[in-house]
């Protein structure tokens, strides 16, 4: 179906079900319960899950398949956001043209950056992309916000002001991005007993877009083009001596992933009509790298998992403070309670980045295949445990997915 084999179709359906019913899955705890702080089913966070999912899926098409490690992809996300906000400012709050322009502008930028950077590989490529992105960040942050030619509005960030032209914005419509009249911030809350579930228009738009681009990614993975990209990662020498030119392939992958980043940026602006330069900084690029490797580089579902994982724990960890910790460990004797809180304190709240860094290292060191590999290992372990009881067959090596 849809040109996918059974396994891929199952995966797609699973992701579709998860995203469509996310408002239920992510709010498993009643609103008033103590566990409600672990709920993640509010619109803002759910939007971030899927938007960063899109970003990481795209990044994975470049890094996962070709092995080219870009440290500049946040720049495309930022460019996409700026493009979208400009549409809001000049023309209309309808998100369709904004998102389209975001994708196109990001793709144009990635053609330029990719064309130059891909003339080198390995660490030089990483440094070139880093240099480009930092340059764009520096420009967006300062130069392009001068009074004569204010493209980015510098530190404040680009936003829509009442005196902007907004040529096609009809009178009487709210000042917020919408999809043909459906406002991105409109939320229907369903109350079931003590539970509350939020259904947000913006989230569903993002989720549908993500499903579409996830489907596209599956197709790319299974296509001859995808195979060529994996071949580039595996052995460029052989590829060259097989009559294939790696450069247009890598450039195409670069532009596709850049367009994905632009799409994510456009959606971000559609959810909240604001664009700031900090979105382009290289730490932001580092974040998408982390999402991809944490989930599982080169796997289909990995980047989505990684993005969800990081955004969820970012949200949870940042909310935890000493009061919460004391509440959790209240069952311990007083001295011990203080000690435990003292130990955990640096890793939560504002210390989330510390946890993130440690996680990053642990994954690279012990689990280069990310969560997907971790899952596979556990699965294999369980299977082998079941097997070893009736036969002593050695572990079979199966080709990686």
């Amino acid at each position, binding site marked *: 179906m849809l040109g996918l084999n059974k396994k891929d179709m199952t995966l797609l359906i699973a992701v579709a079900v998860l995203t469509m019913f996310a408002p239920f899955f992510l709010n498993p705890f009643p609103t008033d319960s103590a566990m409600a702080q672990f709920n993640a089913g509010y619109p803002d966070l759910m939007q971030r899950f899927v938007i960063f999912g899109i970003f990481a899926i795209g990044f994975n098409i470049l890094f996962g398949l070709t092995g080219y490690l870009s440290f500049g992809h946040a720049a495309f996300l930022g460019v996409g956001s700026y493009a979208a906000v400009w549409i809001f400012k000049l023309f209309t709050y309808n998100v369709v043209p904004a998102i389209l322009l975001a994708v196109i502008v990001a793709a144009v930028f990635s053609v330029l950056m990719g064309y130059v950077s891909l003339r080198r590989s390995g660490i*030089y490529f990483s*440094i070139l992309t880093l240099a480009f992105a930092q340059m764009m960040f*520096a420009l967006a942050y300062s130069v*392009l916000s*001068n009074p004569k030619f204010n493209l980015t509005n510098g530190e404040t960030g680009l936003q829509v002001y009442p005196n902007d032209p907004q040529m096609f914005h009809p009178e009487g419509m709210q000042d917020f991005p919408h999809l043909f009249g459906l406002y991105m911030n409109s939320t229907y809350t369903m109350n079931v007993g003590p539970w509350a579930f939020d259904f947000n228009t913006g989230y569903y738009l993002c989720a549908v877009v993500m499903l579409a681009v996830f489907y596209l990614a599956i197709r790319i993975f299974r296509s001859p083009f995808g195979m060529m990209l994996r071949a580039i990662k595996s052995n460029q020498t052989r590829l060259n001596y097989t009559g294939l030119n790696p450069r247009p392939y890598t450039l195409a992958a670069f532009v596709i992933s850049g367009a994905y980043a632009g799409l994510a940026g456009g959606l971000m602006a559609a959810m909240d009509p604001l664009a700031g330069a900090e979105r382009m900084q290289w730490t932001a690029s580092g974040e998408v790298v982390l999402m991809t490797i944490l989930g599982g580089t080169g796997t289909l579902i990995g980047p989505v998992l990684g993005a969800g994982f990081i955004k969820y724990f970012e949200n949870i960890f940042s909310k935890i403070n000493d009061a919460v910790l004391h509440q959790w460990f209240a069952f311990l004797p007083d001295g011990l309670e203080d000690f435990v809180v003292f130990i955990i304190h640096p890793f939560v709240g504002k*210390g989330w980045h510390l946890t993130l860094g440690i996680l990053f*290292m642990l994954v690279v060191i012990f689990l280069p295949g990310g969560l997907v590999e971790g899952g596979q290992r556990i699965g294999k372990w369980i299977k082998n445990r079941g097997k070893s009881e009736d036969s002593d067959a050695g572990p079979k090596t199966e080709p990686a997915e």
Partner: protein
Amino acid sequence: MDAILLQILNGLDKGSAYALIALGLTLIFGTLGVVNFAHGALFMIGAFCAVTLQRFLSLSYQTVSETEKDFLGNPLKVETPYVESWFGPEIGASIIDWSTPLAILLAIPIMMLVGLIMERGLIKHFYKREHADQILVTFGLAIVLQEIVKYYFGANPIQTPAPDALSGVANLGAWFGLELAYPVWRIVYFCFAALVIFGVFAFLQFTTFGMVVRAGMADRETVGLLGINIDRRFTIMFAIAAAVAGLAGVMYAPINPPNYHMGMDFLVLSFVVVVVGGMGSLPGAVLAGFMLGILESFASTTWATTTIPGINQIIIYLVAIIVLLTRPRGLMGRKGVMEE
């Protein structure tokens, strides 16, 4: 003329920092073949050694003065640093005043230890892995180190003054009959950097240890075959590179009040410097460091920024991109080191 000279001087201090960090990066890359994204963090830790020592020396106890009163009429509380009570007020005060240069003594062992732990505990396991993995794990480490510093020292820059005697402005031009006011500490920094660079080169040139390391940089396998334990030397080399970055950081503290992200800021630029100088070339790293520092300072003049707005922000990246595309080996890169 004065203006040009001044810009060159202005570029020297940043250039010195770039050169020192790039030197360490190149040493590590050349010997261990590892791309170390945590090298900027070592620079930052060095700067915080200065902060720590300053705070430590300023630790005080409180006494209540019997004679003096504060403006509310309460007895005045007097803070006396312990050092002043141990060594007498005068010597004590000057020890505190000189805390930044003194921090060099603290930083050398600490940085070498940090380097040693880093290499033995982490980097060692990544020799055989892909460059992408090395980048990623050291990037993670850099985040961890900077977050730890942020946790203990906060997010704001911390003023770390130079000794009074060295914090004024000198009229350098007097020697040449020109008008050139220039902060003394920056001159000190440049001289210090030159000294360290000279020391590292002399060490590599004139000691047997250095000879083996240089041979190892040129051809690791062959030297390994000679039965020389190259790994242990490389570990020590890593520690030295860490110390160089740390020293660069200590002395930079008065120029730019240390903050937790200064390492990252400098790292990106230092990588660019290494690439421009030529991966694996020590003289290239130093040369490119100073060159880019000076270039940046020229690009920051009002003349440059009015001609091409923002040129000061992007000049280094621009140069790097041009160099990488036209001379992929960098200015002085050796053949065969990470080509393509």
